[in-house]
């Protein structure tokens, strides 16, 4: 039976998809049984620790490890000398994981030791002598772009960067179409504004941790918390000169990632130590190390110019986005430039992005990387224009909204999208018209994320007792195993409880792209559905064999193979369990699998509404009410979709109000801890209300769109617009911490 002939978006009444069953890994997580990165140990295990540069920028003239190596209990010491030549695409990763000739940020790893205990390892670090030649440093993005700025890497600016610019500018991006100058000329009101945002960290509660072991034959095992163990395997194999097949990586449960665990930090170092010591090495970062030396996102400096007619039509939009990505070319400015005008159907638009390096840790992805900052700037200016022209903020967005077929600012035409659905839902919601009190303000913003597909492998075994084992290769960061289990059970027509989803290690499946890009429910879901359909095809064939009829004369319904056509009713249906029980006799064990580089991910748009109150005497901000309207395409497990909406919104609130990397004049990070890096706590927040919009994505059999990233894109602007309204003055820098808010209020009052 040719199942692939089915039209992609069937009108379907789902039995399991759309319900809220308990997640399969839930009991382990509420009882403390679940094993996260630091929860594993091995016999003979050593403790690994990293020596980190206290300088923001320094040449490393030499490292003397002799005294450390001689300390009793120390079994191995590594530096960059222990890593060989690597391919160009791995060079920056290697030099970030272990400094090469320069320490490029406060916290940059310069050496590591493996010892019999943490206290011995600590003493060993103190015995390593590093000869630093301290160099001038630069941490601010605009400063780094100046011609007299200290240079991190000579000669790495590529051909997109105009001649005569700072060597710290790695690349220039440009997107857009039309004629922005003509567009501004046609506007009734043109606003030009500048914005700055501070660097923020993903803030996952679980520090990086891993346990590595390697035998003398080069066969290695690695246990680590990661968003992508296949990426870890490939990268570590490349860095250590191993074949991919020699290194088996098992993903632990992961205590948060948000993009920050889509790369490697400790893992290659742990493997190098394990190789040298001949014993397993466990490495766990301290919170201080997480802040100083993993991958925060960029601090930015952005200029926006938007022209609007009196009737609210946007005639032109222009953006110049400057993002620093830390010490190696890493900023997400490309996505920022692509995404910042995505919610608008513009005839004239231009977005320029500058990818700059500075003496800070190498940026890693942070949930919709690059988009929150650019969107913050654009949505703030749109808000101010609405205020100036006396126009309703949702009406203006509806008027200019991207719709099906709109040519996006970044190039392609949108397919079916749900932006206007979210705007209409916001307009109709009681939150939008609820009365506000003194010192209170309401903010609106829209946001978008592309969502991705990528390499995906799924394998589904039909067990002899009729249960199903589903193997996939994407660490579960938010409840995705529940969604896969639901889609498998839905497709197979068996109860949810009869399917178990496991995250397989790297030896069991082909390549899987990391858990990023909001891809898992879409791509792994799609592969799961196709694997189930393959298993169904096989099971129908087995039934046909048993009944002695043609394969094409069997169809699958409600978990049973049934005879069709002329044979209808002749044979009682065979359940999946009955077919599975006799599999050995009908050809052997039954399984379905699917490998694909998934395409057809649908973009997800959102509108956020937020009410804030400002204390005019202190600048303190309180979030009173928050509602998220986001297009999920099809919500497989609505509770986990809501969870993504809420989690992203709250990260955005923290980013808008209090989170920031604070560097001193010495280039050292002043707040590498949760005391002074202030993420929202429970008492800071109200409930986060959610409205799931479903405009199905034609690229997925059930219509699924990724949702995890879009939710962090609108809140920076929504909160800034609310605070600006409440305070009576426009704030143009994030975070809007109380001293900044009070200063703005006082300045406006003068």
């Amino acid at each position: 039976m040719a199942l692939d002939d089915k039209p992609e978006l069937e009108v379907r009444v789902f039995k399991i998809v759309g319900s809220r069953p308990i997640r399969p890994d839930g009991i382990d997580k509420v009882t403390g049984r679940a094993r996260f990165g630091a929860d594993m140990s091995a016999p003979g295990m050593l403790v690994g620790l990293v020596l980190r540069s206290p300088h923001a920028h320094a040449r490393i003239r030499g490292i003397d490890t002799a005294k450390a190596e001689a300390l009793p209990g120390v079994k191995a010491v590594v530096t960059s000398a222990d890593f060989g030549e690597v391919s160009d695409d791995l060079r920056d990763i290697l030099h970030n994981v272990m400094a090469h000739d320069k320490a490029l940020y406060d916290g940059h790893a310069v050496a590591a030791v493996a010892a019999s205990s943490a206290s011995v390892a600590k003493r060993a670090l103190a015995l390593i002598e590093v000869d630093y030649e301290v160099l001038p440093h630069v941490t601010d993005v605009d400063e780094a772009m100046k011609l007299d700025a200290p240079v991190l890497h000579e000669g790495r600016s590529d051909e997109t960067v105009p001649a005569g610019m700072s060597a710290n500018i790695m690349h220039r991006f440009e997107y857009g179409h039309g004629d922005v100058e003509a567009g501004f000329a046609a506007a009734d009101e043109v606003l030009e504004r500048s914005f700055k945002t501070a660097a923020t960290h993903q803030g996952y509660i679980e520090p990086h941790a891993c346990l590595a072991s390697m035998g003398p034959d080069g066969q290695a095992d690695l246990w680590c918390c990661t968003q992508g163990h296949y990426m870890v395997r490939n990268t570590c194999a490349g860095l250590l000169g191993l074949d991919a097949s020699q290194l088996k990586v098992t993903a632990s449960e992961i205590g948060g990632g948000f993009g920050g665990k889509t790369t490697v930090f400790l893992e290659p170092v742990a493997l190098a130590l394990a190789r040298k010591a001949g014993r397993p090495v466990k490495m766990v970062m301290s919170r201080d190390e997480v802040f100083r030396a993993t991958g925060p996102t960029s601090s930015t400096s952005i200029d926006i110019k938007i022209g609007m007619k009196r009737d609210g039509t946007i005639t032109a939009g222009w953006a110049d986005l400057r993002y620093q990505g830390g010490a190696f070319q890493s900023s997400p400015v490309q996505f920022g430039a692509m995404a910042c005008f995505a919610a608008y159907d513009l005839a004239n638009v231009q977005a320029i992005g500058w990818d700059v390096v500075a003496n800070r840790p190498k940026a890693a992805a942070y949930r919709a990387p690059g988009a929150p900052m650019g969107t913050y700037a654009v949505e703030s200016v749109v808000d101010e224009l609405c205020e100036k022209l006396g126009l309703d903020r949702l009406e203006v967005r509806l008027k200019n909204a991207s719709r099906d077929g709109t040519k996006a600012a970044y190039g392609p035409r949108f397919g079916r999208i749900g932006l206007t659905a979210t705007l209409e839902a916001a307009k109709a919601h009681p939150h939008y018209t609820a009365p506000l009190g003194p010192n209170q303000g309401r903010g609106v913003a829209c946001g978008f994320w592309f969502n991705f597909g990528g390499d995906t492998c799924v394998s589904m075994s039909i067990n002899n007792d009729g249960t199903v084992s589903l193997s996939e290769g994407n660490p579960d960061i938010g409840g995705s195993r529940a969604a896969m289990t639901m889609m498998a059970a839905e497709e197979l027509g068996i109860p949810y409880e009869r399917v178990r989803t496991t995250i397989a290690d790297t030896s069991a499946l082909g390549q899987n792209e990391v858990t990023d890009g909001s891809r898992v429910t879409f791509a792994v879901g799609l592969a799961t559905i196709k694997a189930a359909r393959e298993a169904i095809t096989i099971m129908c064939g087995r039934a046909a064999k048993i009944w002695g009829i043609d394969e094409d004369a069997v169809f699958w319904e409600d978990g049973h193979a049934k005879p069709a056509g002329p044979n209808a009713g002749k044979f009682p249906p065979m359940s999946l369990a009955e077919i599975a029980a006799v599999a050995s006799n009908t050809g052997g064990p039954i399984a379905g699998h699917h490998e694909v580089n998934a395409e057809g991910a649908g973009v997800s748009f959102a509108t956020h509404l937020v009410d804030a109150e400002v204390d005019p005497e202190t600048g303190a901000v309180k979030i009173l009410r928050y509602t998220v309207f986001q297009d999920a395409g099809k919500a497989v497990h609505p509770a986990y979709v809501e969870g993504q909406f809420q989690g992203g919104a709250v990260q955005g609130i923290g980013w808008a109000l209090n989170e920031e990397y604070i560097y001193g004049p010495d280039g050292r990070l002043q707040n590498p801890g949760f005391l002074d890096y202030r993420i929202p706590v429970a008492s800071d927040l109200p409930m986060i209300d959610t409205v799931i919009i479903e405009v199905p994505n034609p690229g997925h059999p059930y219509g699924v769109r990724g949702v995890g990233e879009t939710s962090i894109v609108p809140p920076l602007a929504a909160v800034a617009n609310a605070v600006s309204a409440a305070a009576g003055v426009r704030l143009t820098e994030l975070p809007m911490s109380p001293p900044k808010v009070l200063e703005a209020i006082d300045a406006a009052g003068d």
Partner: protein
Amino acid sequence: MRYEAPRTLESAVSLLAGEPGSAQILAGGTDLLVRLRSGFDEPDLVVDIKRIDGMNAITAENGGWRVGAAVSGAELGEHDGVKAAWPGVVEAAELIGSTQIQGRATMAGNLCNASPAADSVPALIAAQAVARVIGPNGTREVAVGDIATAPGKTSLAKGEIVASIFLPARAARSGDAYLRFIPRTEMDIAVVGVGVSLTLDASGTCTAARVSVCAVAATVLLVEDAAAALIGTPVDDAALERLAAACSAACKPIDDKRGTIEFRTKVAGVLARRAATIAIERAKG
């Protein structure tokens, strides 16, 4: 590092006085363990005072309350007597950290950690609390405001321990309050904090007042000008404005990652006004 948990004050004092190397006192540990973990402190000896008889007690004394040095914020917050007499002191102590921190942190520890931003100290100074210090040379009573001498430094000699803090008897028609400014709603170190204690007479005129401000100088300040702005007045808006101005004028803060000079100075005045307002309500009963 060695760990000792003596059962008597005498043995604690003798351990501390007799230690040739460096020694630290462990009460709640909410400051000490952070410093141990980060390598900021590497004492040779840690003396745990929680097993000493009487250190966990809150006892009525001369109309006031004596709070043992090992009494946690959580225990203090459960004591009806102290809460009724000195609600400002209790609310200040209860602002320190999270529920988990409250389960361990002590006022004595907060005091002796000598942070300029210590939450319990302005309220204690406003209350005229007295620390009983016991050492190798005997016992002495020290006004709480005289314990910290500089950030991280106290006037305690080697071998001395704060054994208890005494909160004096409350005069009639008195009230106290503590307010602090933090950027979030919990979990932050005070950017500025103000403790106010005052007494009214039958006609509502203020007859006594003490105002103390933290996080605006190297040690917690007692602002006499601020008290003077209230004494002899009906504590009306005009007096509160003068109170606020006096507090702001007394500030000698720094710019740091928690606040600017300008911000601390301004908000000190705002909080003084608000704390005084609460203290008045409490005084009126």
